[in-house]
């Protein structure tokens, strides 16, 4: 089955197709994260920690629709209640415009530009989804966080799937003693509860790494946990494929073992691998966000949806500052879309499953 066929069948079913579109939009947005963001990733306004979301107004006092504007918040300390309160400063309006100029950034790391979807005057503190404890703009960090949370799974898959497929391929093709030993090792990796291993490996990472080093290592750790399950299934498939006539034919031509495995056997398992990939992305996304939620994954000042949700560990935050929970809903939407899409692709590629 080729991809245009797959796409055609996908298009016929509304719900999975919607999920597909949602994912496309999500990935499109994170690709242009800087364009959608209002502030740079590490921008922090410490004097405005936990500011509630800025209100946007479209109607002025004379009840006429005008260009959207907003007010700044002023932080005051309530001496009776001993709390910090935010009040709108209604004396000055700030106009907000679309496709205006903001901070300078490099699109895809190459094209220098300063055009943003939403732009505001310099002295205006526009926090569409409020701020966190460090005065980071939650709205902007959703895009940067998504960039990490939604890609780390794919990167881990890029490592774990080739390893799993080749490992399973070799094990199944060689058979005998090799197969036994290799499968015992894979089973051992599978026998350690995955999240325990994840926590421990991440917990034992030396401190003081740069954020990109940490990102890479977390990816490798995620991959290390995922390969074994795939290896086992692929091995099972290889066992049944390797006795087919065409493999014997290739052997008589004189092809090497590695060539037979990678060129002639593994491609036969491709539809399973495609299904397994779409179905396992969500678990990687959940694993990364869980790890970061615990403080073992992506570290501040970098954003990921998981470490943004760390704020939700404080009771006061979930009760009085619900805007800090938004990353949780985005994780939910992303995982839901991947699940729905994965189920559909499995139905399409595996006709036995269709009812």
């Amino acid at each position, binding site marked *: 089955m080729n991809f245009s066929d797959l796409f055609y069948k996908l298009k016929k079913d509304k719900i999975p197709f919607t999920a597909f579109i949602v994912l496309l939009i999500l990935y499109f947005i994170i690709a242009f994260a800087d364009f959608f963001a209002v502030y740079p990733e590490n921008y922090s306004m410490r004097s405005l920690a936990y500011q509630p979301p800025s209100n946007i107004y479209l109607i002025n006092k004379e009840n006429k629709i005008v260009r959207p504007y907003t007010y700044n918040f002023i932080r005051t300390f309530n001496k009776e209640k001993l709390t910090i309160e935010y009040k709108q400063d209604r004396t000055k309006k700030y106009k907000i415009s679309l496709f205006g100029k903001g901070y300078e950034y490099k699109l895809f790391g190459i094209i220098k530009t300063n055009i943003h979807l939403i732009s505001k005057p310099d002295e205006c503190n526009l926090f569409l989804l409020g701020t966190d404890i460090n005065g980071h703009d939650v709205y902007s960090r959703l895009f940067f966080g998504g960039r990490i949370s939604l890609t780390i799974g794919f990167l881990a898959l890029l490592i774990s799937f080739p390893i799993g497929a080749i490992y399973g391929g070799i094990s199944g093709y060689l058979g005998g003693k090799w197969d036994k030993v290799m499968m015992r090792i894979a089973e051992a990796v599978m026998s350690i509860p995955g999240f325990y291993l994840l926590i421990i490996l991440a917990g034992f990472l030396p401190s003081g790494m740069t954020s990109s080093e940490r990102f890479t290592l977390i990816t490798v750790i995620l991959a290390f946990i995922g390969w074994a399950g795939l290896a086992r299934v692929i091995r099972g498939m290889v066992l049944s494929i390797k006795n087919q006539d065409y493999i014997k034919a290739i052997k008589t031509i004189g092809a090497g073992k590695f060539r037979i495995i990678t060129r002639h056997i593994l491609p036969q398992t491709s539809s399973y691998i495609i299904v397994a990939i779409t179905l396992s992305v969500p678990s990687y996304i959940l694993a990364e966000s869980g790890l970061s939620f615990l403080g*073992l994954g992506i570290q501040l000042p970098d954003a990921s949806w998981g470490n943004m949700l760390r704020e939700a560990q404080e009771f006061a935050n979930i009760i009085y500052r619900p805007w800090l929970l938004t990353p949780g809903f985005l994780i939910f939407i992303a995982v839901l879309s991947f699940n729905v899409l994965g189920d559909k692709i499995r139905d399409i590629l595996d006709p036995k499953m269709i009812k």
Partner: protein
Amino acid sequence: MNTWTYILKRILESIPILFIVSLLSFFLIRLSPVDPLAQMKLNPAISEETIQKETKRLGLDKPVIVQYGLWVKNFLSGNMGYCIDNTKVSVKIKSRILNTLLLSLVVIFFSWIIALPLGILAAIFYNSLFDKILTVLSSVGMAIPSFFFAVLMLLFAQKTGYFPIGGLTSINFNEMDLFHKIADVMWHVALPAFVLTTISLSSLMRQMRANLLDILDADYVKFAYAKGLSKSKVIIKHALRNAINPIITLLGFEFAGLLSGAALTEYVFQYPGLGKLILEAAMQSDVNLVMASLMIGAFMLISGNIIADIVLKLTDPRVRI
């Protein structure tokens, strides 16, 4: 092969796996540049003597292979060493295992009791509104990050005050009689169990539905209909029995998933289980505790799988291994 030899065979098979697990975890942890006794040395409550005893016990002055050998020897004789807070690892782990088992069993019990009937009904009324609603609900259940759901439940507990927040027992636990003690523990288990049940429920229900749908398509089911049996008889007597077997295999996987999935939920609810223990151990680089809990985790997972296989063999006479 009779059941007892089968059980024995499965247990013997798991020994090399546990051996590889120990090798893997030992060398992974040793690869990291963390001094296993660094935290102990920092703790003024731990005497120099204890540290020297630990150094000798772990063989830190000897090559890595010898260290591994010593560790295995100690572990097999039940000596797992001390945590960084100077309590015995074995004591600490024992209570946590029971708590995690309790939580897992409650979750498995409820998810089975709810998921199987729902899955069966969804398959029988395939493509009906009921089926569609259940499909949507189960997709939602599978997509909620467990820790996020746990946080929301915690919020619920805090707002309503119906459920306790965190822990396993109330403050006045020791003064209660047995009945109230059980009730108190159950009351504390309720919310974490609810979160985990919702998540494992969804996948279990889908599996049950898919299996039964497969079986309803089989020739012998069509034959049963052709004989003129009623729909309920065909489903209960012929289809269900075969549809449930693959679910039993899932029991093992589910247990594995629970051990992993529970870690985050335990953390959010401050439930004193194995997952929370291992998390604390990893954060404090407590090597003894980490090694021991990794082994225990793997041991529990393998036992779960073996139990599932045995149950499958008992229920399905076709299984011959």
